[in-house]
């Protein structure tokens, strides 16, 4: 496909914080990544407001294991505190995703060149991403590599079905929904033979409004369109 990408992401630890434990600060990881976490990783690889990244499916390669660590979080008001964070150990995921154009951004209509963006995305994955990758939280450094989705042996290949209860799917931001508010989406993920098929954000039935929010404006002053960039390079090349 001209807009899809497959890659593998892994690290020593991951912390996809369960929001219930985020409140008090004793963080505990979800057992599987959220849609939003995977989307964030993809956006670290390659991002542009013109595009919306859609994560299709995630394959859990390693066994879901946990390890707790004693952490000294920085207390911004001074002093220090102690907490126990519980991380996922040695996470490894294969991800299949694609991008779509953000129709809520008519201002960026000129930037909708699918082939160009696709090639840039592929190169970015090959290079290990444009920005640094992290699994859930900033202290969990991750690494991205191209892969063929479904290749290799996964730990849960033989496990027919695994339910994870109620989880956060992701966050709706105004520039992707067209509504001027921030919302949280919830869903019930199921892992079949190690693969979690994500539903699309707009398919989530449980959406909870968090607060009002306005989208950031992008225009020619802070975005450079690919075609123009190409043309520019072309000129230089010709000249």
């Amino acid at each position: 496909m001209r807009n899809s990408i497959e890659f593998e992401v892994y690290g020593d630890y991951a912390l996809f914080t369960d929001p219930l434990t985020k409140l008090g600060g004793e963080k505990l990881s979800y057992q599987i990544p959220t849609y939003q976490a995977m989307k964030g990783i993809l956006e670290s690889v390659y991002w542009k407001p013109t595009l919306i990244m859609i994560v299709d499916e995630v394959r859990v390669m390693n066994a879901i294991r946990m390890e707790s660590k004693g952490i000294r979080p920085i207390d911004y008001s001074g002093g220090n505190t102690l907490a126990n964070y519980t991380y996922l150990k040695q996470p490894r995921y294969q991800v299949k995703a694609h991008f779509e154009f953000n129709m809520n951004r008519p201002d960026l209509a000129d930037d909708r060149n699918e082939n160009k963006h696709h090639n840039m995305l592929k190169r970015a994955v090959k290079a290990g991403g444009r920005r640094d990758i992290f699994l859930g939280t900033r202290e969990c450094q991750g690494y991205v590599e191209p892969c063929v989705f479904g290749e290799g042996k996964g730990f849960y290949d033989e496990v027919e079905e695994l339910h994870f209860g109620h989880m956060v799917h992701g966050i709706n931001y105004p520039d992707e929904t067209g509504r001027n508010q921030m919302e949280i989406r919830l869903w019930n993920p199921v892992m079949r033979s190690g693969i979690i098929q994500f539903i699309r954000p707009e398919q989530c039935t449980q959406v909870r409004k968090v607060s009002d929010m306005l989208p950031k404006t992008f225009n020619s002053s802070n975005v450079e369109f690919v075609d123009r960039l190409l043309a520019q390079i072309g000129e230089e090349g010709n000249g």
Partner: protein
Amino acid sequence: MSWLLHLYETYESNLDRVGEIEKRYNDREYTLLPISHTTQNAHIEVEVTEDGEFHSAFIIDKKDASTLIPCTEESASRAGSKIAPYPLHDKLSYVAGDFVAYGGQIKKEEPYAYYIKQLESWAQSPYATAKVRSIYNYLKKGQLIQDLVHVKILCVDADNKLIEKWDKKYEPLYPEKPLIFSTVAGGQDSAFIRFNVHSPKEILTKVWKDREMYDSFIKYYQDLLGSEDICYVTGQKLPSTDRHANKIRNAADKAKLISANDTSGFTFRGRFSQSNEVASISYEVSQKAHNALKWLINRQAKIIDQRVFLVWGNDMPEVADPTEDTFSIDPTPVTLVQKKSFTNQELASEISKALDGYRNDVTSKSEVNIMILDSATTGRMAVLYYRHMNKELYLDRLVKWHSSCAWLHRYRKNEQGEFVQFYGAPATKDIAFAAYGPRANEKIVKGLMERLLPCIVDDLKIPQDIVTSVYQRASNPVSMEKWEWEKTLSIACALINRQEGFKLALDTESNDRDYLFGRLLAVADVLERSALGREETRASNAIRYMNAFSRHPSRTWMTIQQSLQPYQARLGTKANYYSKIIDEVASRIKLEEFNNKPLSGKYLLGFYSQRHELYQKRENNKDVVEASNEEEKSI
């Protein structure tokens, strides 16, 4: 699935136990609390007639003090000068309308007014029971202290004020020190009162044990709950709460699993500005999940230095504990060990049989939850480990652990207090003591237990530092007492055997260098021991040199062998048997391997198995040996 959801499900599948008082082995009572209820120690019990008149009152015996009382969200977390009455039973300052008249001290407003208004609205709600109305009818008269003074439960001084503190000067009024002063720790005004309804015609269920009362309050309170929101645990739209339970591990425990009073530390601020933006939990789920957790912890958790190790099944709470040793799962004495062919498969099937009780339950959901909780600071508690797994798989893993990390142990006592031997895996706590010594700090013990749990339930390798530590301590017998060393040794063998997969029975075919060196050491030890006789308890040379031997085997072996000579001489021809074994074993070690390279843990296995074999032989062949001795003498 999420741990909260599983706790909630556990509550739902144990609804028949709600409010039932169970007792732990140490006589401590615990209950699966109904929602919107908590427990408190009451001091005075007041009986009210059905018409709402005072009947009688008495001071409650300490053993019977624990009372299940209804509570609201505010009262559950009231502190300091905040006025938040419990709905029914409460302290004197709340329930007595004449508290101030009798000299009670109150801060700011009068608590009684809040209390009686709250009780009134319950008593007049459609969910109220006759008992609530009786109690309300009595209390609205506001003469509780007057009645209690009248029946001589509370004491007043000459001015008709409550006596604050017992003093000799009151002796003219009360010749004996009234009971109330030894029951209530504070003054009389901090006494906690519980109410009961008395009927002359029939025996009524005690108010705090009455299911109808629980339901009445739960239904009444349901209507008062706050706004609805999506519950992150169940996904349903239900009244949510931002006050969650504390006192999870014990009555004095302030740590909460879910808390949100941190608005400056940037735990959630950034994307969210209010705590309720981060997540929302329904009142019902929060109550039920926390109550189930408290109940489970009271029932079956292991607590080490405030760290909670908890294993439970969703439908049936009881599950085999992974941190226990084989003996506690299958306490049948081991006679099988004598058999040479006793293998791990046999042990596995024995343990399987012992675990069958847990297996047989074939209800729809047979799953096991494993959870570790601990708090780094006093206010918050974290989930350090959570696993939810299929029960079959869990039990299979247990069988695997107990049959692979197995050795012959002799440190456990049976019910009669005698030492018994068992073949199997040691308890994780004993592994900690073997690795770090018997006086190891509890913090270290709990850390090791947390690290070992994944090894058991996920069948992972035991961390090398633990194995090394146990190995080193087992190689240093002079540093500890005999029994302790034997315990450490058998645990070390169990851990090393999990990696190596040797049998307990002596493997005479093995040509492994370390194993053979271990055998040599055992023969030297047994030879010297048998020459010393029973009265002599000093350590043999082999044992004293064990530590050096493990690091420089060939050099130390020379020393040991030299020091063996006097004992060989003393034993005379009897030593021939041992000397033959030494020759046989030593000849198996390849010339180039007979060097000073440090020994691996396998040498402990060789040592143990050889020693076991030799002692076994002696027991069986005692008659033969003695007979041959007689012959020798006659010649």
